[in-house]
């Protein structure tokens, strides 16, 4: 079932077209990546989903209902540009933000205490925000985003400002939220987190969707049939000679002296492998799928050149 459906949404700012007839369908209980270079229109789309701005044309539907004020309480939004009132106490502020999402004060207090303990910032409840480190502020910010237990979560660069340990804690929390049934839209430039977390993605460039689909499918489509073989041998000459007979092999030394790495661009490596087996010890053989990083760069650059 589709939770968020963006249909032909267009948005202009004066002469500038931020979004150009963009269509995205986000299924329920998944982590959906929204990717794109700076200025591609991601933030505009996210702001439309949060009803901060309205589209010029097209529509957004949530669970097959037209997006309206009542959906605000069901969305949790962590903006890229985020902050807190510096002079306010942490706990008081968290309660205020929860109340704005329609949670009763007592309930907000109970839930916040639990999350504060989980994120190990319980002792900071009565401190002013300005006394907190950047990382701790980010934690508070994340908690206030999810405190009203929304079924749609929108995270814009959630990992910025986290150290690796806390980034991991955050990652686990995001996966946990998905498993509990939340639909998550993740906008990020951090491609490794896209590979780890996202089920599907849309790549946006100049306000248009240029690539869409499941991460695994996209990787398959961009497969260059690359295989990496490492062989250990005392005498590298026969291998180098063999490689010369192929036009789709690249040979490189590795850090270890008696090893040689061959990269084959072919879907049928059996013949080569059979020959190599007689020339040394096979250390590894693996399929190399293109990284999301490569796909991102390749797609955006080819589109930019075309236009």
């Amino acid at each position: 079932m589709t939770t968020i459906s963006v249909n032909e949404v267009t948005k202009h700012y004066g002469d500038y077209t931020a979004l150009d007839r963009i269509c995205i369908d986000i299924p329920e209980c998944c982590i959906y990546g929204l990717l794109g270079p700076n200025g591609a229109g991601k933030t505009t789309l996210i702001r439309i989903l949060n009803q901060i701005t309205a589209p010029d044309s097209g529509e957004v539907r949530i669970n097959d209902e037209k997006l309206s004020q009542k959906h605000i309480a069901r969305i949790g939004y962590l903006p890229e540009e985020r902050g807190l009132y510096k002079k306010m106490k942490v706990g008081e502020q968290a309660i205020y933000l929860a109340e704005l999402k329609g949670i009763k004060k007592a309930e907000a207090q109970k839930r916040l205490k639990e999350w504060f303990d989980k994120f190990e910032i319980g002792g900071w409840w009565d401190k002013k925000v300005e006394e907190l480190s950047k990382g701790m502020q980010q934690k508070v910010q994340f908690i206030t985003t999810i405190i009203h237990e929304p079924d749609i979560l929108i995270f814009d660069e959630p990992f910025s400002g986290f150290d690796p340990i806390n980034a991991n804690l955050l990652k686990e929390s995001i996966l946990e939220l998905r498993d509990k049934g939340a639909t998550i839209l993740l906008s990020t430039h951090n491609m490794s987190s896209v590979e780890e977390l996202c089920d599907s993605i849309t790549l946006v460039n100049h306000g248009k969707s240029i690539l869409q689909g499941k991460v695994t499918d996209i990787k398959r489509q961009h497969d260059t049939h690359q295989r990496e073989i490492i062989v250990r041998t005392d005498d590298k000459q026969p291998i180098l000679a063999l490689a010369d007979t192929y036009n789709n092999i690249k040979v490189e030394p590795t850090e270890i002296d008696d090893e040689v790495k061959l990269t084959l661009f072919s879907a049928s490596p059996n013949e080569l492998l059979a020959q190599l087996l007689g020339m040394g010890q096979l250390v590894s053989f693996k399929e190399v799928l293109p990284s999301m990083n490569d796909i991102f760069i390749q797609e955006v650059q080819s589109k930019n050149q075309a236009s």
Partner: protein
Amino acid sequence: MNKIGLIIKREYLTRVRKRSFLIMTFLGPILMAAIYIIPIMLALHSGDEKMRIAVVDESHWFEDRFTDNKEHTFVLMPGLPIDSVKELVKNEIFDMALYVPPTQLNIPSNAIVYSIRQVPMEIENYISSVMQKEIEDQKLMAKGVDPEIVSAVKTNVNLQVMRMDDKGNEKETFTRVQFVLGILLASLVYMFIIFFGGQVMQGVAEEKTNRIIEVIISSVKPFQLMMGKIIGVSLVALTQFVMWILLTGALYLGFSAFIGLSHPGMLSQGTVMSQEITANDIMSNESVQNILQIAQSIDFGTIIVSFLIFFILGYLLYATLYAAIGSLVDNNTDSQQFTLPVTVPLMIAIISSFYIVNNPDSSLSIWLSMIPFTSPISMMVRIPFGVPIWQIVASVVLLAGSFVLMTWLAAKIYRTGILMYGKKLSYKEIFKWLNYK
């Protein structure tokens, strides 16, 4: 939706809890009271330092004219050259030296005071008035007129001013009281608009530069946030105002009682401020009647009601503008160009109030009290003089109407401005925002 209530609550509480609010609340009345109290205290304690003035009168006109009082003693130095008297002043044997140069035949008209420190205004005035009187008397006598006759001729005219309305009712007016009241009310409105309007602007700019704005407006509409802030701050202003009135009243009563007990009769001598009405005046019957007359001549009901209406509406009108400006702030230098158009009408209103108090019913005054951007101040200047009710109503309607219009405009600028970072803004650019959906 209770969200706007939550915003108002937060805006109100965070401001009222601030140390600066408490300081202002208590310092304000103390400052106001000090304006009354310090001159009285000074008057009570003067004489601690008696000024000693050496007089070298080479014209011999004024030698026995200067009389001593609590503040100063005059010591004649006949025959001593002024230079040696100046030495005495330098050695602080005297506080100052008055030197009247010798004259041949003609009448002296100049004199010099030598002093190391600043000469008190009072003494300057006293010396010149004594000399003037003496010279005038001498001139009169030279013309054959007895100065006694002149002082007997001097008369104080008691001019009563009666305002008539179309029903033929007559009412005595006290221009001086109305003058002070008008300026006071206008200054209060001006001060509150500048101060609390500025708070709205800072609040909006703070949310923008803190980057909390996007978090908040994913929960509430920008309009709700803007109005919540404006209303919250207006409640802070009203709280402060009420506290000031109560505290000033308490301080004033307390002090009057203290003075009344410790220095009976001190204030009624009129040594301090001739127009001051104090607790002791009430003791004399004449003063009671005077106060009652003045009180009756002023329509306090209308003044208080119209003050509250014009103050609140004026604040709201300007607060929406300040909110819009706050949303444009990126760094402080940029906001300058946008605050100027807002402060100019306020400046015009406060400067023109000195014209209006003298001509409360001139057509310029009426216009200024109708134009929404100046009316909250200009109308308050006119109110104590009595303004036809239709003018008040028309002005209020215009003000309220332009508040609604400005809110609509400001909201459009605000909701785009708060999300705009690092862009140099021009009026042309902002004008475009009005068309955004």
